């Protein structure tokens, strides 16, 4: 059955609560700042948000429902999506359908995460049963070792090199230097990238994100509401989501995007060539390369040539992770999956300021999340269209 489009559903009010490496505030504090920024940006009271979709790993003992009382919300659509890097896409897709069908008028999609000195470790210890049973006992607490194993195989199968990863990282750092909210403030050279210390080869220091506190948020509403409020907006042109795809692959070589990519572009009425700005999920640079392949920007196994043939900076011919990505802006837990959506929303509505790609009308943001055992399980992508897209 052909997918039904999202019609008059739009995204507005891109919000990033500036990241901090460590925060003494709770997750609810970060969520509160995001909601306040959404309300201020939309010119409406937060009590007018009749939908609330919340993503976080660090909200315990609360889930989304407790936060309604905490923030004085009374939503008729409520969602809790602690799904890591794919939470943004999942949250947006559900919110969009709820708005489209009239179950809600304005949904606040919020990812908020705090990061105390020990938050990351606590998060690891309680991440998932398969991790507990079959990953942590191997010294693979944290994703570095697990992704090193996937990356090692990806390099062996495709010929991707650390120089490719480095080129992406250097471009992202270049972009991040234009984003005042990015945590990384120093330039990065390819030599520094290549000379960095090994964490779990082939993963080295600059392949790893910096966990931090922060929040990312946006509103989903109907076009008429956005117009009435005088808000710049973007349409949700297409979306895909897939979990535990290709379970038969012994090592992860592709994400669920590879299964659903034709549908994404068909729904959006465009092709990879029609995309002006791309924000992939960059927990590791090789995962970006997997997405270039699986999202149709190049053929499977040819991302190395693709990387060497393009310029990934804001002014380049393939503007990628224009806010600096998680690798250079920071990874605010579940917010990592919202970051790309929020940045692309800024880009296609001309609100990106110093990171603005000139003439960006159509952007793609993808998410990837939850290394439950030996592979990332969730994958998703959306295409957003600004005015004239």
């Amino acid at each position, binding site marked *: 059955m052909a997918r039904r489009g999202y019609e008059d559903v739009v995204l507005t009010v891109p919000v990033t609560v500036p990241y901090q490496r460590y925060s003494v505030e709770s997750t609810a504090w970060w969520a509160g700042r995001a909601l306040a920024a959404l309300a201020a940006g939309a010119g409406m009271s937060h009590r007018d948000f009749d939908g609330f979709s919340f993503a976080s790993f660090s909200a315990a003992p609360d889930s989304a429902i407790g936060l309604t009382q905490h923030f004085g919300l009374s939503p008729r659509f409520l969602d809790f999506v602690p799904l890591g890097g794919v939470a943004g896409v999942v949250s947006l897709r559900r919110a969009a359908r709820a708005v489209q069908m009239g179950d809600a008028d304005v949904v606040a999609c919020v990812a908020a995460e705090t990061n105390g000195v020990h938050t990351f*470790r606590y998060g*690891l*210890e309680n991440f998932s*049963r*398969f991790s*507990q*049973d*079959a*990953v*942590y*006992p*191997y*010294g*693979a*607490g*944290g994703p*570095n*070792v*697990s992704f*090193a*194993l*996937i990356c*090692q*195989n990806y390099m*062996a199968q495709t010929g991707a090199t650390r120089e490719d990863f480095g080129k992406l990282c250097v471009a992202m750092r270049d972009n991040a230097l234009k984003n005042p909210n990015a945590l990384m403030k120093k330039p990065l050279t390819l030599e520094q990238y290549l000379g960095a*210390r*090994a*964490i*779990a*080869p*082939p*993963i080295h220091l600059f392949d790893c994100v910096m966990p931090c506190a922060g929040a990312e948020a946006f509103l989903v509403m109907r076009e008429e509401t956005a117009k009435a409020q005088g808000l710049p907006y973007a349409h949700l042109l297409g979306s895909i989501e897939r979990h535990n795809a290709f*379970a038969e692959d*012994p*090592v992860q070589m592709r994400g669920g995007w590879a299964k659903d990519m034709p549908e994404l572009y068909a729904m959006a009425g465009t092709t990879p060539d029609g995309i002006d700005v791309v924000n992939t999920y960059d927990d590791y640079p090789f995962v970006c390369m997997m997405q270039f392949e699986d999202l149709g920007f190049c053929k499977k196994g040819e991302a190395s040539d693709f990387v060497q043939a393009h310029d990934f900076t804001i002014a380049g011919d393939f503007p990628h992770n224009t806010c600096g990505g998680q690798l250079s802006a920071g990874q605010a837990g579940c917010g990592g999956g919202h970051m790309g959506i929020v940045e692309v929303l800024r880009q296609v509505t001309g609100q990106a300021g110093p990171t603005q790609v000139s003439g960006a009308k159509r952007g793609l943001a993808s998410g990837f999340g939850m290394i439950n*055992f*030996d592979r990332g399980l969730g994958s998703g992508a959306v295409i957003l269209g600004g005015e004239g897209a």
Partner: protein
Amino acid sequence: MAPLQPPRRKDPLKRTRLPLLPPGQRSRAAHHLTAAAAEGRFALPRCAVCGAFHFPVREACPDCLSARIEMVEAPEGATVLSQTTAEVPADNYFRERAPWRVGLVKMDAGPTALVHLHPEGIAGSRLRLVLMLDRAGQAVLYAGPEQKGADPMTDPQWREMTADPLHRRVLITDARSFAAPALVKALVEAGAREVRLGLPEAWKPFATEKLTALPGVSVVPLDLGSERSVADHARDYGGKTEIVINTADHMRPGGALGGSITATRDAMEAVVFGPMRLAQALAPAMIGRGADGPTGAAAWVNLLSVHALAPSPALAGWSAAQAAALAWSHSLRADLAQGGVKLLNLFCGPADSDWFQTWPQPKVGGSAVATAAVSGLKRGLEEMFVGDVAKDVQARLAANPKAVEREMRQG
């Protein structure tokens, strides 16, 4: 890799490294692997309906959703898919021991798994999987050399999960045990640095020189029934004992009604209270030295009877004492685990000793006990059944414990 060298004299100014443990949390279902690892079996979960192996242990088959998951002996071979070395692990236990090799393997049984990887393992190489108990006492997969019997002992990651007697100092609690001479020989052959035998009631005649002919072997007075004797021993040797092999026993026949209460009390004293006294004096030092280098404190071994699991009505009091010793050993195991020190129980059939003189063959000789003990230590096991009778009882218990109870009436 170079073979392990004997430890140097400790620097008395340096703090002994406190034991840390690898992450030990497991789901209840994952302990099916623990059960196999404790006995040194390689078993994996398999769907009883569609026959597919899977990993990690699940509550339902991902192919057919059946909840009937059984543990089945599985092919041990595996091919390495990729490998890495954790240089900077987040976990403190691994951080201290880094670099730590980890691999992703495709098991011959089907599933993919993360494993502790032998140094020779690289993508494409063939390895043999072993289910091990790690320092936390929980099951993990180790991928080592493919040839069965190949010695991976030069790999520090393997050594970390075993209790090899090599360069370690061993206390055998009762020199008068039938198994003592064979144990001494096997331990010396395995490279033990010292083998010390405790001699109870030293005033009674004992041919000490037969045991002390081998290098590093000594016999010292040790009476587990005496607080003072145990305290003296712990003071002299507390920090110098890495492995304890508890051979204390006091077998006297007699039924539930006709048996001697005094003999039963003596048996309890020998196999429960005596070892308890020794453990309370010695084990805290062992726990504290659980991470004291590659030859730190490693294991406590109990020589028990299979009647600890299946009492013999003809040996009522003694069986009860054995059962008490087993029950207590599980608690001792929990305490030792805080230091990553293992506890191995050897369940023996009737021994080739004076008190089993009239019992029918087959009986367990000292060399069978010694071979099992050294093998169990080298593999880091928790439970072994020694001799044909013990193995027979083990199999029958797994099938139908009530049948074993009835059949024990016939001896």
